[in-house]
């Protein structure tokens, strides 16, 4: 919603354009905004507060071993998935950038597939492979699945950072006697670190709120937060879920703000 800074220059948007922009924003934000009051309900089912605002479901969330366990699982899975996505994605992006052939363009496009194909198709495929590899319903399995589907985010952000990297810096480094590892650690990585951090944040968020794949490849052992919510909705309408939802939104928002702050610092 950039009000009036378009190519028209000086002219603000008309009432129609302004109306559409606000409607779109509200349409995006309203479903989110409803969970906050619902999470503060004094009723015993998913509803708006009737008589009073109550923090009981937040209390419940942070004392229930079920929810705490789901939160911890989600957090550690997201950390492991982020590590996998950042390492593989960064190395892949650097490799493609260094070789820069037509084949590496194909590889880079292939690595973006998890973003493009429907998650459900991916989940079905994963289910078959993981059943064969004995990875169903394991921490490792979910972390791997989330890590792999998080790679595209890292590839996109790191490739963008590399596009702005001056290849002569690499030549200069090698010319002064630096090995490939030294060049990578002291020249290339520091220059593209903002891109790596950005990609890592997106990969973390991706894992943190991913549900579909988890539904397919996890059952009793692995209970991530989104899956706990999903089951909660199916089984009962416990308002604790609204509190969890607020927590999920808060975490995602915090990470996005962190990413924005890092970007601003780099550009400023």
């Amino acid at each position: 919603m950039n009000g009036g800074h378009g190519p028209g220059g000086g002219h603000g948007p008309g009432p129609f354009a302004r109306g559409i922009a606000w409607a779109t924003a509200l349409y995006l934000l309203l479903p989110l905004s409803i969970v906050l009051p619902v999470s503060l309900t004094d009723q015993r089912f998913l509803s708006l507060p009737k008589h009073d605002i109550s923090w009981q479901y937040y209390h419940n969330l942070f004392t229930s071993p079920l929810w705490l366990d789901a939160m911890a699982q989600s957090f550690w899975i997201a950390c492991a998935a982020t590590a996998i996505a950042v390492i593989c994605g960064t190395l892949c992006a650097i490799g493609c950038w260094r070789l820069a052939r037509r084949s590496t363009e194909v590889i880079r496009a292939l690595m973006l597939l998890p973003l493009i194909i429907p998650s459900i198709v991916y989940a079905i495929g994963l289910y078959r492979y993981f059943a064969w590899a004995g990875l169903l319903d394991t921490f490792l399995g979910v972390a791997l699945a989330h890590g792999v589907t998080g790679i595209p985010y890292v590839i996109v952000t790191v490739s963008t950072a590399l596009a702005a990297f001056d290849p002569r810096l690499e030549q200069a480094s090698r010319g002064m006697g630096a090995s490939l590892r030294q060049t990578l650690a002291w020249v290339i990585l520091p220059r593209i670190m903002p891109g790596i951090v950005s990609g890592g944040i997106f990969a973390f968020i991706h894992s943190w709120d991913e549900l579909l794949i988890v539904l397919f490849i996890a059952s009793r052992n692995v209970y991530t937060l989104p899956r706990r919510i999903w089951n909660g909705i199916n089984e009962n309408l416990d308002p604790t879920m609204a509190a969890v939802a607020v927590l999920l939104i808060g975490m995602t928002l915090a990470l996005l703000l962190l990413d924005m702050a890092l970007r601003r610092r780099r550009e400023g």
Partner: protein
Amino acid sequence: MSHALALHGVTKRYGNFVAVDRVSLDVAAGSFLTLLGPSGSGKTTILMAIAGFTVPDAGRILLDTKDITALPPEKRDFGMVFQGYALFPHMTVAENVAFPLRVRGMGRAEREDKVRAALDLVQLSALGDRRPQQLSGGQQQRVALARALVFDPALLLLDEPLSALDKKLRAELQEELRALHRRVGRTFVNVTHDQDEALSLSDQVAILNHGKLIQTGEPAALYERPATRFVADFLGKSNFLEATAEGGVLHLGGLDLAQADAPASGPVLLSLRPEKIALLADGETAANVAPGKILSWSYLGAGYSLVVDTPMGPLRASLPSWRAPIAPAEGLAVRLGWAADAAVAVAEDPA
């Protein structure tokens, strides 16, 4: 201690395009060689082959007696100043200069001593804590020099080191670079398309065109005795006289030319520098005299550049402006004269 460099038949092709065509060169230890040529002449490709970033398709590169043709750049121990300097923007000036030492695992104390000495060498000791972006172009250039010299490289390679600077600064840094070369006494190999830079900096100049080495020599020798039309034309300005020799006498435009070392017969191409042509006063004479009219002229501060229409064709002559005997004007009749040893016979370049 400095090292000698030799290229034997170095060739590099990109598809059907021959970027470097059987170039052989010898660079004496401690000397300053400049590879000079227009863009696309292959001079940068040769430098990249010496640095190790480009592997030649044929030929050998020797450092003293050691074959380094296939050695990767990080193993060559050569300092290099890149076009645009390629300083690391995420490091301070001191960290940039320390980089080659850090790469070699040198201890902190020794490293700091060497960095200080290198920054002293280029008179930048006060700016060690700055970032490269905070420095002027000339200062960045000096940081790049300090960084390239700090680890006592076997050879210093310079890729158009002065091209990003304005004209006045360029002249200043040319002198500094020359002095620096004398002080450190290492072998320098420089690439440029700027003939003034090549003449003023180098002990030896190698002139390249279309990937071929045309002529090498000391700057004065190249300027005074160019081997081909291209060399005469690229290094400074020159008139070209396409004369014919018959029985030891040269003819051109109905006039006889007095020329030292003229061949007995056949076509002869002469290169005649504008500053070797004098404007003759009334009654004055010279071995060669050509009457003409001024076609056009321009004022250059220190002198005038005249184009005079003569029976031999239009000739470019230069005339000092201080107490000039004439006031140049278009159509003014003048007489040009030059000595028998002023012009040099040069070869036509192979197509």
